[in-house]
C-alpha cells in the first residue's frame, strides 16, 4: 500500500450517525417486542409464557400500527416523505402503506399461531420439542407431557422486523440486512411443525439452502453496484446509472444479481422451485404468514430498487422482467392444475399471483405502484384466510390436505366450505371480490405503461387459473362426502377472528375498493 493512500484513508473519518427515533418508531416497537419475547422465554415460568407472549406481541403490533398512522398523518402534502437514519431508511408513502399492511397481516398471523384448540391432544401447530428427533422416545415423552413451546412468537416478531425494514430500506446494505432478518427466523419457523415433522424439517433445509444461495447472489450484486457507483445508497446509484449510455458490465451484473435475490423472495419463475415444498412442509399458520407477508415486503423492496435506483436503466431490465412475469404466470397457472394437495395448490397459485403482481410493477408509472400495493393488500388477506381455513379441516393424522379428502366438504360444513370458496373466487379474480379489483388495477396500469403483451398473457392465465379454483369448489359442493372423510374442527375465537378479517377485506375491497385505491394512489410516490 502506498503512503499516499494510507494518508487518505486515515483522514476519512466515520461520523457518528444521527437517528430520528420517532420516524423509526414502528420498526423499533416491533424490534422491542421481539427482544421482550426472548426475555419472557428466559425468565417467566413455562405456564405463564403463552399468555404473556401473545399479549406482548398483539399489543406491540397494534401500537406499531398506531405509530404508522401517526407518521402517515405527518407526511407533507405532496406525500413525499423523508429519508432518515443517515440515508438508510425511507419514511414515505409506499413504505408506510406496506408497513401498515404487514402489521395487519402480522396481527392476524399471530392470532393463527396462537390457536390451541385444533389438536385433539392439546397444544398448538408447533413441535412440543423441536430438538427431539421425529419418532424418538424423547419426542413421545414431550408430547405425552403436553409440552408446548412459545419460541415461535419472538421468532415471528424478528421476522416481522425484517419485513418492516425491507420495503423501507433506502440503501442496499440495509436491504441486505433486512432480507436476512426476515429470512433467518422464517427458516427456523418452517421446521417446527408438530405433525409431519420430516416434511417440515425437509422444508426448512430446502428453504435455508436455497435462501442462503440466493442472498449470496443478492450480496454479490450489491458489491457490483457499489463498485459501479461508489455507494450503496439507492439515490446515488440512481444518479450514477441515469447517464449510463454504454453497457457497463458492473452495472448490468449488479442489476441482474440483485434482481435474482429479490425474485427468489417473491417466488418468481425460474426461482420458484422452493415455494411448493416449503409451503407444504411448514406449519400452516407459518405458511400463511410467510405467503402473505414475505410477498408484501419483497415486492415493496423490489419496487423501490427498480423505481429509485434504476429508473434510468428501464430499457435494460424491463424486457427481462416482462419475460419473468410471463413465465411466472404461465408456469404457476399450468402446474397448479395437476396438484392434488391443497397447500401445494395454494403455493402454485401464489407463484401465479407473483406474476400478476410483477405485471403491475413493470408498468413503471405511478398507477403501477399504487395498483401493486392494492393487489398486495388484497392478495395478502385472501392468502392468510385460505391457509387459516386449511388448518380447520382435519382427520386423525392432522390436517387433511389431500384434495380428495375435501370432497363433499360443503355438505358437512357449508360455512367453512363457503368461506374457502369465497377465497378461491377472490384468487380467481371473480367480480365483487378483492381479487377482481386488484387484477383490474394492475392490468390497467400495465396497459397504460405500454406492456400490452403482459395484459394478454395475464388475462389468459387468469382463465387457466380459474379452472382449478372452480374445480376445488365443484369438488367441495357437488360430490358425495367420503365415509371416513375429515371433520371440520371448531376453532377458538382467534382463528375465527383471523378468517373473519380475511373475509371482510376480501368482500369490502371487492365491493368498495375506491377508498383503499385512493389511499394507495396518495401513497404511491417514492422519496428520492
Amino acid at each position, binding site marked *: 500500500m502506498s503512503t499516499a*493512500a494510507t494518508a*487518505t*484513508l486515515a483522514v*476519512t473519518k*466515520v461520523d457518528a450517525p444521527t437517528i430520528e427515533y420517532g420516524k423509526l418508531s414502528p420498526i423499533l416497537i416491533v424490534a422491542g417486542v421481539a427482544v421482550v419475547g426472548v426475555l419472557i422465554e428466559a425468565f417467566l415460568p413455562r405456564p405463564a409464557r403463552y399468555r404473556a407472549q401473545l399479549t406482548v406481541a398483539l399489543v406491540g403490533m397494534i401500537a406499531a400500527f398506531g405509530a404508522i398512522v401517526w407518521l402517515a398523518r405527518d407526511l407533507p402534502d405532496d406525500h413525499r416523505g423523508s429519508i432518515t437514519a443517515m440515508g438508510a431508511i425511507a419514511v414515505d408513502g409506499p413504505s408506510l402503506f406496506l408497513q401498515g399492511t404487514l402489521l395487519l397481516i402480522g396481527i392476524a398471523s399471530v392470532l393463527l399461531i396462537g390457536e390451541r384448540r385444533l389438536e385433539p391432544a392439546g397444544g398448538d401447530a408447533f413441535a412440543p420439542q*423441536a*430438538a427431539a*428427533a*421425529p*419418532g424418538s422416545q424423547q419426542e413421545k415423552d414431550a408430547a405425552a407431557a403436553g409440552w408446548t413451546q412459545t419460541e415461535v412468537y419472538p421468532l415471528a416478531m424478528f421476522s416481522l422486523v425484517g419485513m418492516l425494514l425491507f420495503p423501507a430500506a433506502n440503501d442496499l*446494505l440495509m436491504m*441486505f*440486512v433486512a432480507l*436476512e432478518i426476515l429470512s*433467518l427466523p422464517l*427458516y*427456523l419457523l418452517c*421446521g417446527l411443525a408438530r405433525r409431519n*415433522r*420430516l*416434511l417440515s*424439517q*425437509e*422444508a*426448512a*433445509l*430446502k428453504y*435455508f*439452502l436455497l435462501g*442462503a*444461495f440466493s442472498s*449470496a*447472489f443478492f*450480496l*454479490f450484486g*450489491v*458489491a*457490483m453496484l*457499489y*463498485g459501479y457507483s*461508489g*455507494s*450503496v445508497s439507492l439515490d446515488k446509484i440512481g444518479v450514477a446509472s441515469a447517464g449510463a449510455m454504454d453497457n457497463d458490465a458492473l452495472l448490468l451484473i449488479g442489476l441482474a444479481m440483485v434482481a435474482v435475490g429479490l425474485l427468489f423472495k417473491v417466488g418468481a419463475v425460474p426461482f420458484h422451485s422452493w415455494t*411448493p*415444498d416449503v409451503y*407444504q*412442509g411448514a406449519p400452516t399458520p407459518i405458511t400463511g404468514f410467510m405467503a402473505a407477508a414475505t410477498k408484501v415486503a419483497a415486492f415493496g423492496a423490489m419496487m423501490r430498487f427498480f423505481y429509485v435506483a434504476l429508473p434510468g436503466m428501464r430499457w435494460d431490465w424491463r424486457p427481462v422482467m416482462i419475460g419473468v412475469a410471463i413465465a411466472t404466470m404461465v408456469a404457476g397457472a399450468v*402446474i397448479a392444475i*395437476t396438484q392434488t394437495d391443497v397447500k401445494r395448490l395454494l403455493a402454485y397459485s401464489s407463484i401465479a399471483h407473483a406474476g400478476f403482481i410483477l405485471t403491475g410493477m413493470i408498468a413503471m408509472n405511478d398507477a403501477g405502484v399504487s395498483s401493486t400495493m392494492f393487489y398486495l393488500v388484497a392478495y395478502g388477506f385472501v392468502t392468510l384466510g385460505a391457509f387459516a381455513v386449511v388448518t380447520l379441516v382435519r382427520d386423525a393424522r392432522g390436517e387433511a390436505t389431500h384434495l380428495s379428502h375435501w370432497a363433499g366438504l360443503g355438505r358437512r360444513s357449508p360455512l367453512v366450505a363457503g368461506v374457502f370458496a369465497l377465497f378461491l373466487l377472490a384468487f380467481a379474480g371473480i367480480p365483487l371480490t378483492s381479487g377482481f379489483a386488484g387484477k383490474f388495477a394492475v392490468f390497467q396500469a400495465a396497459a397504460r405503461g405500454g406492456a400490452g403483451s403482459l395484459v394478454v398473457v395475464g388475462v389468459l392465465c387468469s382463465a387457466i387459473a380459474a379452472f382449478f379454483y372452480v374445480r376445488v369448489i365443484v369438488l367441495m359442493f357437488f360430490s358425495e362426502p367420503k365415509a371416513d372423510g375429515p371433520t371440520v374442527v371448531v376453532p377458538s375465537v382467534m382463528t375465527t377472528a383471523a378468517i373473519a378479517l380475511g373475509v371482510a377485506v376480501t368482500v369490502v375491497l371487492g365491493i368498495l375498493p375506491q377508498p383503499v385505491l385512493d389511499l394507495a394512489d396518495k401513497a404511491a410516490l417514492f422519496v428520492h
Partner: protein
Amino acid sequence: MNPVNYLYLSALLFTIGAAGVLLRRNAIVVFMCVELMLNACNLAFVTFGRMHDNLDGQIIAFFTMVVAACEVVVGLSIIIAIFRSRRSASVDDASLMKW
C-alpha cells in the same frame, strides 16, 4: 498491485462457491460453499472500497461477517436437526416432496 486482480479472485471464489452449491451433495459442504460466496462478496467490497477511496466497502464487510455468523447458527441447527432424524446430511435424501 493492481486492485482489479482482487476482483478477478473474488469472482473466481464466487463461481467456485456457486458451482459447489449446485454440485455437492452433503448439506454441510453446500453450506460451506455458500459461506465461500459470501466471503467472495467481502473481498469485492473491500477491493471496491479501496478503488473508490472510501470506507463504505470495509464497513459493509463487517456487516456481512455478522450476517454470515447468524446464518451459520441457523443453518447448522437445521442441518443437525435433519441429520438426527435421518442419519444423513445428504441433500439428495431430503426428497419426500416433489413437484
